């Protein structure tokens, strides 16, 4: 692989890791999951999805708990 291509590949992997680690990719994953079998399946808007995701922690705060 040429050097620019390597740099691009590294940047793409870093970006992928960052989005996965921070949860930014959660919505894309949800849409991909919902549309895996039916490309026309109705999906929530990003706004509605993120709301639901945050509010789930309200219902059960044990999700995402941090240690001492």
């Amino acid at each position, binding site marked *: 692989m040429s050097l620019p291509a390597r740099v691009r590949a590294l940047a793409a992997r870093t970006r992928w*890791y*960052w*989005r*996965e*680690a*921070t*949860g*930014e990719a*959660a*919505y894309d*994953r*949800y849409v*991909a*999951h*919902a549309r895996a079998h039916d490309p026309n399946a109705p999906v929530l808007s*990003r*706004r509605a*999805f*993120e*709301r639901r*995701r*945050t*509010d*789930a*922690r*309200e*219902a*059960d*705060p*044990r*999700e*995402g*708990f*941090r*240690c*001492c």
Partner: protein
Amino acid sequence: MTEPAAPSDRGTVGRGSPSPAQIAIWTAVALAGAVGWAMLALSRGEEISAAWMVAAALGTYAIGYRFYSRFIAYRVLRVDKTRATPAERLDNGVDFHPTDRRVLFGHHFAAVAGAGPLVGPVLAAQMGYLPGTIWIVVGVILAGAVQDMVTLFFSTRRDGRSLGQMARDEIGPFGGAAALVAVFAIMIILLAVLALVIVNALAESPWGVFSIAMTIPIALFMGFYLRVLRPGRVTEVSVVGVALLLLAIVAGGWVAESSLAETFTLSKGTLVLWMIAYGFLASVLPVWMLLAPRDYLSTFMKVGTIALLALGVFIALPTLKMPAVTDFASRGDGPIFAGSMFPFVFITVACGALSGFHALVSSGTTPKMIQKETQVRMVGYGAMLTESFVAIMAMITACIIDPGLFFAVNAPVGAIGDSVQSASEAVAGFGFSISPEALTAAAESVEEESLLSRTGGAPTFALGMSEIFSAVIGGAAMKAFWYHFAIMFEALFILTTVDAGTRVGRFMLQDTLGNLYKPLRDVSWKPGVWLTSAIVVGGWGYFLWVGVHDPLGGINQLFPLFGIANQLLAAVALAVCTTLLVKSGRLKWAWVTGVPLAWDVAVTLTASWQKIFSGDPRVGFFTQRSIYQEGIDNGEVIAPAKDMDEMHTIVTNSTVDGVLCALFALLIIVVIVDAGRVCWKAVHAPETVKLHEAPYQRSTVVAPAGLFATKEEKAEMAAAAAGDGGGTGPERPVGTRS
């Protein structure tokens, strides 16, 4: 009804005799570790480089990970790469979803790493660097990381059931209930002690108070941004958030110099009230407003600072000034925590070597996301090794500062008085030396009014960290900034834990009280939420208040309780793991968790016993109580109490602490006895054993077990990708080759 024996072809990753190159590499790693330990253990009276401590730790981790964790994964647990994990079977794209092992490692590490491993080792440094360091490294290899990995494995086999549920299912309702009470009581003490650490670090420090106060509007702004303006754009808002946070630290310095300084100079008592008010509000406000954005901020700060600190330690390679072993180790009369090396070093180090709380993360969130059973090794064991390394770095920060300063910062007011002169004399009495001028200069260098009796570990950690960072960037001029950076970083995620922990405590309380009065269980019924939140906040708030006003020193009195509580929870987790090993027909491997359990129980019960029955008033709560009660009866005031009110305070506190300690000991005994009964039954009547494991289902996911894919794994992945063109056929024979 044992867990089904796995096909014989499984778990063959990289089997066969090792190549000469591999043998050479592992011999070199072992030698590096051994030389590190030799330097740490054998040097007497001379200062040695922290590099040796790093070498000893990393060398041992590498050996432990390569050999012991592998043995546990493939021989004891028999992880099965052909078996679908809950993430694969129940994939809903939200909480259950197969997550890349490297991402999950990051999530898991961020969830288990907290203030504990930064605080415990600093306090344990009272006995010198060696006892604490040995336990941090040996303990994690043989106990802490084992607990995390085994819990993660068993919870993965049970669709991500929580520790409490597993205790109830596999041990019984009695042991399960004891485990539940233990978790709740521990949560209260944990929150109180963490809050106490922060109050001690922020009291009389306008710089610190201002910076921390600013995190609230910053978090509110981020919350609003993520909720209303641009939902889900975590990166952009976090970049802004972190920039504002750094600005808040710098601005803290300006505020401390300005006329506003008065406003932000708060006493410990006032800070306690603020903490309690904050804790209550934060836990009843919607998650999106404060908790979620704070969580992002504190996670970035935490991971970033830990990475920076590791880098700083490697670049600066500071010298350890603390002796390897101090006289307090054998005499047991240390000013920071009383009691002899066994059991109190183990109780004090706590989270850095073995942390019961990790079992709550290892059962619950992480098992719902793990892609392959084989990855429990990298995620569970690996993340805990990393956490242990954080504890080693905390030990380094405590040991590179002048020992005289260390004791002046960490000993309670009752022991060193409140002037630099009295502190200097007291430190000389401990067998170290520091001049009053040096104490004043140390405080000035970080722009604090005073550093005396800044107990709790956070200020010591911050001093050490500012020492390391200023050696790398900025020199002495940046010391004050780095000190407050470190304080802010610890305070930030302790506050996040206080907020999240109060919510978890409330949730548990609602769940339990819901049995008596149904509506209480409804998490959206406001009066119920307020009431249960108030109870939880009242619980830790009480101990926080007590800790701040205790003439004997809050950390001195409460930290052992926190350690005992945490190690008790570890005992519950290890008991559940051992029971499961026995019940699944692996009696001959039960020692893997059984030996750490036995050790942990010995430590915890010895510590509880001494805290309850010791005749030494520095150690035994009830001896303390009777001495001060006698003083009251005779109308005399005994130092460090200054008046009758303080005498009464001591009597009340000692009684409460002693009773709590007895309660913890009782709970641990109940869980162990109940687990023993279940194991006995499983061995003598194997036909009665009932495991609550999810049935086997063949996995269609192909993924490497470790950080780097082996040659065989790469071939498997290539074959899988070529075989189905991206779809997931149910009958595809993956994981069966090699």
